[in-house]
């Protein structure tokens, strides 16, 4: 089960749940599972960057997940 962590400022999407465990083979399946758990959450989460096992993805979608993967949603980084 991949561990998913929601940033504090988006806890309104999840009814205050900060961490959940999700069975998913890739990021796409993870988003589907989160949508089922928290309807409409992926509209916002889909616009976030995601750090999967320490690697930050600005546009994650097809990335694979391991049973012990850690996924952190975070604000997309812009730069100058």
């Amino acid at each position: 089960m991949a561990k998913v962590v929601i940033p504090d400022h988006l806890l309104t999407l999840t009814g205050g749940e900060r961490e959940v465990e999700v069975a998913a083979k890739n990021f796409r399946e993870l988003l589907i599972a989160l949508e089922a758990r928290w309807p409409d959450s992926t509209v916002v989460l889909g616009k976030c960057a995601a750090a999967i096992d320490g690697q930050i993805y600005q546009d994650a979608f097809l990335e694979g997940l391991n049973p012990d993967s850690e996924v952190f949603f975070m604000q997309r980084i812009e730069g100058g």
Partner: protein
Amino acid sequence: MAEAVDYKVIGTSPVRPDGVDKVTGRAQYGADMNLPNMIYGKVLRSPHAHARIKSVDLSKALAMPGVYAAVSGADFPQAQHGEIGGEGGGDVADLAKNIMARDKVLYHGHAVAAVAARSVQLAEAALEAIDVSYEPLPPVLDLDAAMAVDATLLDENCFTKNLPEKPDKPSNIAAVMQLARGDVEAGFADADVIVEGEYRIPMAHQGYIEPHACTASVNEGGQATVWCCTQGHFEFRAMASKVLNMNIADLKFIASEIGGGFGGKTVLYLEPLAILLSQKSHRPVKMTMTREEVFRATGPTSGTHCKVKVGAKKDGTLTAATAWLAYEAGAFAGAPMGPGAMSIFAPYRLDNFHIEALDVLVNKPKVAAYRAPGAPQSMHAMECALDDLARELGMDPIDLRMKNAAEEGTQAPYGPKFPAIGFKACLEAAKQHPHYTRPIPEGAGRGVAAGFWFNVGMQSSAEVHINENGTVTVVEGNPDIGGSRASMCLMAAETLGVTYEQVRTLIGDTESTGFSNVTGGSRTTFATGMAVVQACEDIIAQCKARAAATWGVDEDQVEWEDGQAVPAPGVNADVKPLSLADIAANAARTGGPLLGRASLNAQGAGASFAVNIADVKVDRDTGKVDVLSYTAIQDAGKAIHPAYVEGQMQGGAAQGIGWALNEEYIFNTDGVMENAGFLDYRIPVASDLPMIDTQIIEVPNPSHPYGVRGVGETPIVAPLAVIANAVRAATGLRINDLPFSPPRVLEALDNA
């Protein structure tokens, strides 16, 4: 990832291929495009910082001989809310209303109308003939006052985002963001020493030398070609299509050379106006901002008000920290409070922290990205607090940072665990640096501070063409701001096994190469470089196949070594190695021209850390701060072109020192910027600065074939606190507000 090997061309510093044209004046910048029948556009800007627009009458201007077109907000499509997309994000409707005001003007200098005429002088005269009726409103100029419950609202439909419960009243606070971990109260209870600080930094501009400029030409079929100075012509094309509701296929954007951007040229201002004026006039339209317009109407970075509190044990171990970070967004939401919040504690191991950040509307220009957007302001607060903490603890400030330094496996405040990073290597280098070990000059003070930036990857494309004689043409889509053509040439040469001189890199327009995100986010050498390397690997695979066909062996019996196809070890083939030139010369017989391609969304950008050291002297009679010596130490991952990496480090340090010492937007009570020119908005010049010494640390990024991390943004983060801490050391005074201009320093000295 590539092992630490001795590269043949990577790590050398050849002359940039575009250098001769730039120093001889041949290079074409934004305002250099001239076309037959071209006319000139100018913008009418609001004299009020906050007002309703009651009416705009263009008729008198349009009646003037030699005036060919005029537009106002009514000529634009209805602004639709939606994601801009691309690197900077934001809302399309806000972008459109920033380009041309509709019902309200939200800052002094906000565009209200535009005209195109036979000459610049005539266009300026026509602006005076435009009749605009305003209903002035009170300007909201103070960051703290803007957040008050009873503050005048910039946008009656702005409801604070991300609150636990949806607010029932609008506010100038567009959004809040929180990050937290652990038990802050317990952490502070565990501390032996606690320091607190409150810091204000005013709005500051990137100060790029080249003003915004573009030329647009719309043909009778409605297809527009735009020449402009931009950090990203593909994203400009996308933004223009959304703002003007045009088919993206009808827009062609060609990036000129660029005289500095630093984030400020990721935003669209003039281009949609020039397109509209060209549509109406049926002539090419050139528009060039004056320096005053650049200051008044393009995005500077946020002014901020930050509070920080840090606790530590006697041995220096940090136990808890809190931060409250308020960022000015300017006229529309979108201050870089998120990166500011995520970066403030990033260099350190912290089990207990709480960060709150706010995005606040004020009647000032809409902010834009500026090198590591948001980080210099927040990290200035933390790095000053750490300096105070070191004093309280009697510790060396580098030792305090080393005691708490993040390393591989440390969980960053924004979530993930760091992969291999170079912060400790930077601290060790700083501690041993001759600048740090030599005595502090008499009467001077020494400061140190750390910097951090995430860096990003994003989308890039590249093609590699092998010419008939084996020379190489790389085509990619990122405007060259800091020497990226040279870096691409070096990576292509290294991968293919040819010399630097055999490779040339071109920047394609939006119709001649694949999509690339902006040159920004410290991404170009990392992401576009990755695309170039992959395109070269495509070429190598093709060359091996053609060599195999030529020799009558299997493809897996061919290897690529030093720019040649050679038989693999053990392969019994009595053949001569085939160089790139040999294979290119025979290309017609083996399948036609050699073209390698790659497009990708680069992942795995490596975070970059820096440590800077400065010695300053303060004139107690005038308050003037002189920087005696300055050293910037930064982890580049791998420096592809060391001289340009040093250039980024020196340039970022110079901008950061300027921000610390002099740069600030000064507004009067009506919201009019009073120093909209380089005489009064004082960026540092060569005589203001010592030679900035550099030391490049190389802890390779495991996600890049040559170990690259971005280097363009981290250099501006540390200098603010470095200067503040050095002034603290020189004077014994913690001056909390920047810049340290002579009047502010003198006032602090007088009040001490």
